[in-house]
């Protein structure tokens, strides 16, 4: 799916907006061979670093959101979703859920809501975790979120959606992509909001229809005369 019907960009062909997939939300891609989420080569069972602990769901009564995970990986590979306990610095991974092509879809898990959360979708190949895509957002209590990732060639892509209303999936309002072009933890202030999935759904700004309420003229600055 291309990302924007787009100009022809010479040096770096720009993907057209992947807007047609109704389930496409915050989309991130990563090349294969990226270091593991924990930066630790010592792998435990399943291919994740041995130091990765399992995430402990919030106790009853605490604000919580429901998290679903779906992955599309080739036979023999696995996928996992990590929650990075230090959401700002992308440190201290905790295993939220995992799956493979041959297993049933992972069961939903509960995670803490109303706090900045950084998730890391990783593909586990040949016993090593790699190809991670990370986002940060603030889950709302009582909402359901879906992380879906897939292996594409040597890399992978993944997105996160608010699926509280299942037939109206939307990108979480504050979601930003933290992994980008070799950077494994883009500072929050520099991370890009990528709500491409809602493009054909459009949005509103001051009561008027717009294509992308988040778009700014920043990329036009080179042409704007003072």
């Amino acid at each position, binding site marked *: 799916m291309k990302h924007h019907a787009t100009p*022809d960009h010479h040096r770096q062909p720009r993907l057209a907006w992947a807007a047609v997939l109704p389930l496409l939300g915050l989309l991130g891609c990563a090349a294969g061979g990226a270091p593991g989420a924990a930066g630790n080569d010592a792998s435990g069972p399943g291919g994740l670093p041995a130091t990765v602990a399992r995430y402990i769901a919030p106790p009853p009564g605490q604000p919580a959101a429901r998290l679903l995970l779906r992955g599309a990986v080739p036979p023999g590979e696995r996928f996992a979703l990590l929650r990075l306990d230090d959401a700002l610095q992308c440190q201290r991974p905790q295993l939220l859920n995992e799956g493979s092509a041959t297993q049933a879809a992972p069961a939903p898990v509960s995670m803490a809501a109303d706090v900045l959360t950084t998730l890391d979708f990783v593909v586990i190949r040949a016993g090593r975790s790699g190809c991670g895509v990370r986002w940060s957002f603030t889950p709302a209590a009582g909402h359901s979120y879906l992380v879906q990732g897939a292996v594409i060639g040597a890399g992978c892509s993944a997105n996160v959606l608010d699926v509280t209303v299942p037939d109206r999936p939307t990108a979480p309002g504050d979601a930003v992509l933290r992994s980008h072009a070799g950077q494994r933890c883009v500072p929050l202030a520099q991370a890009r909001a990528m709500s491409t999935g809602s493009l054909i759904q*459009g*949005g509103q700004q001051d009561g008027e229809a717009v294509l992308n309420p988040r778009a700014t003229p920043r990329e036009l600055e080179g042409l704007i005369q003072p």
Partner: protein
Amino acid sequence: MTRQPLRQAWDGHIHRARPARLAASIAAALLAASPASQALSPAEVFAQVAPSVWRVQTLDRDGLLLGQGSAVVTGPGQLVTNCHVLARARKVQLRRDGQSNAVPARLALWDAPRDLCLLQASGVDAPAVPLLPSAQAAVGQPAFAVGHPRGLDLTMSAGLVSSFRRNDAAQLVLIQTSAAISGGSSGGGLFNDQGALLGLTTIASVTADAQNLNFAIPADWILDLPRRHAAARAAEAAAKAASR
């Protein structure tokens, strides 16, 4: 069309004057879209609109080609295109097939949330296309995309208006069409069978499991551009003043 350099006409404190001036010419274009008479053949549509569809080339700070797209003439020396065509550019120029010299253009109005930008190019001497209000468009009517996909000058493709995509408030956001578009089509025209502009081709689907799912921002938004541009600039100025 006037040959007077627009920069000259627009120098100084003219942010207010610009939108008004542009609104007038855009409104004239809209009014020109009188109710249907007789459908033109695709060849006739092409002959009518082709002079008004230009290729946009963006250049980086070193003058190297950055990207290409399309633009449609909507007023004297005025062309609309998608803002994403202009992303990261330092210069913009317009070209026509067979013309050796590129025509310099400058960004005059922009509305990033609607992905709609207006270029001023005094060197463009081409007729403005009439705009078709979306209220007069219907699913199933013929639609023709004319643009410069992959740098292939003035490529026409035919299809239908497939659907209207609306936001949660039921406001029109995109006109879906089966007319084929590709990279470089952005900012090109989607026309009805009388050569009136339905919208600007903006989003294409290019996957193995999707065909003929293409989208154009509605021509109505062109009419709103001067007002929305002025409002956004005023809000920016107010925010700056408040932060001092």
